[in-house]
């Protein structure tokens, strides 16, 4: 793998890492498997792209994308809590609906951002140039989001979110309406995912309705890889592991795509297979480790 490709992979890991923090919040903290993300990632991309082409400031575009993501998450959570639809199904319904909505927002399947000023153009000059500037900007953003999540989960409200995922009967007996907490948590998660989508679109210069396919699997793979490599103890560790897991995942994918055996080489369409194998590997490793270390 070339130096350039390695930096590209780390950059992707940071960008999608924001999405992974969101997936961590629903999947691990709230115990709410949320497939909305396959729709809210392109939703964030679509909203921010349309906002940018209409002349909004890149930061405003990110804010609008996050608001849209939050609303999408709210819809899933409302379907689940108030209408008592199974969480998995509720999120699939929102995801499917978002496909149509995203095309409506963009007035087509994609929007190009060529010649439009994006986050990278408005960030203050950090004194670095060339292909180091993007990873630095996205790294700062990803770290800010991770720190925000760690802080939030240590607040009174954050503790209630943790308790809702752990023991709903307990936290209800402490006077918390778990419906409100689930709506807040899933909303927040999808706001993160939409932010990630918006940044991905700004980075690659286009928003596309199909860019969300497989987001949840990539997110879960990153969370699981992170846990396997960096441990699960505590919220702070969990959030950091999720971000690092995202980077490792993207680098691993880039490495796999670089493999060549004579005439055989992986193509980007093999990505889903590689991801599935990676997740299986990460899930099986601890079990095998236990077996091997037994005297």
């Amino acid at each position: 793998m070339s130096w350039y490709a390695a930096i590209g992979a780390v950059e992707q890991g940071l960008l999608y890492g924001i999405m992974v923090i969101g997936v961590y919040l629903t999947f691990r903290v709230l115990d709410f498997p949320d497939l909305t993300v396959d729709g809210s990632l392109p939703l964030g991309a679509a909203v921010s792209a349309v906002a940018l082409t209409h002349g909004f400031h890149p930061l405003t575009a990110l804010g609008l994308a996050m608001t849209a993501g939050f609303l999408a998450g709210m819809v899933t959570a409302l379907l689940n809590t108030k209408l008592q639809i199974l969480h998995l199904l509720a999120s699939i319904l929102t995801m499917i609906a978002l496909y149509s909505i995203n095309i409506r927002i963009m007035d087509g399947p994609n929007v190009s951002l060529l010649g439009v000023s994006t986050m990278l153009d408005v960030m203050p000059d950090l004194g670095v140039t060339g292909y180091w500037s993007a990873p630095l900007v996205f790294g700062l953003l990803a770290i800010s989001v991770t720190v925000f999540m760690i802080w939030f989960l240590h607040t009174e409200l954050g503790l209630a979110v943790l308790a809702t995922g752990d023991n709903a009967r307990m936290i209800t007996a402490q006077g918390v309406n778990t419906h409100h907490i689930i709506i807040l948590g899933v909303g927040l998660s999808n706001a993160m995912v939409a932010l990630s989508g918006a940044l991905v679109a700004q980075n690659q210069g286009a928003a596309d309705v199909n860019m969300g396919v497989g987001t949840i699997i990539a997110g879960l793979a990153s969370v699981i890889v992170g846990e396997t490599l960096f441990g699960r103890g505590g919220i702070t560790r969990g959030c950091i592991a999720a971000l690092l897991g995202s980077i490792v995942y993207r680098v691993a994918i880039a490495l796999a795509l670089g493999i060549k055996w004579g005439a055989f080489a992986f193509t980007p369409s093999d990505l889903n297979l590689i991801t599935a194998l990676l997740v299986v590997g990460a899930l099986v490793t601890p079990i095998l480790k236990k077996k091997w270390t037994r005297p």
Partner: protein
Amino acid sequence: MIRIEGYTQYFHRGGVNEIRALDQVDLHLAKGDFVTLIGSNGAGKSTLLNGLAGVHRADEGQMWIGGRNVTDWPEHRRAACIGRVFQDPLVGTCASLSIEQNMALSFKRGQRRGLSLGVKQQDRGFFREQLQILGLGLEDRLKASVGLLSGGQRQALTMVMATLIEPEVLLLDEHTAALDPKTARQILELTGQIVDIKQLTTMMVTHNMAQALAYGNRLVMLHQGRIILDVSGEEKKNLTVEDLLAQFYTAQGEAFASDRALLC
């Protein structure tokens, strides 16, 4: 303090399995009353407690806690005035959170939760002080995960958490039934101690008649969704397990007799 009037609760209403768990129950508790609730399986003891806590919505009747009509309040809203300890020691606490995080959660019971720090430095001293009452050494393990504690330790912690903010009524639903005899006795003694110190209005469900006699100033026996015995004060003190058994069999006998009358 607590007023329950004409409380009727059905399960599976309208279906073939319809059960009338409670039938026109009236119960008034004065402030500081410690009521022990006994009765056979299916008598409606837990239903009465859960009904008051808001787990079920009453089919008929009205309930008041401290003068407020709470009949239409959902469970999480009633939690503001109710402390609860459950039969299953795993239900009262969060296993993945630390002791201090669990205590911080119940220290906000019924209040707005904001964005200030969840576990506050200034509360830790108070938490330690409260845990010292237990004599289990938990005050030195504030950061330990609750999942590491035994069932008895978790139940003791739940007991402290339920009374961290003084509840208007404390509901104990067979909270020693899942523990070994020694731990059960300790938790029960602790219950008596905490209720005594804080002068709490309490309802305790138990299967153990000796316990029901030893604790509290009032005893209520339920049978088939109705209150069949309600004694307090001196009268309760003079009651024996034999008296209770006699009452119990009389009630069952009547039911048996009426069944026979129906069949013959």
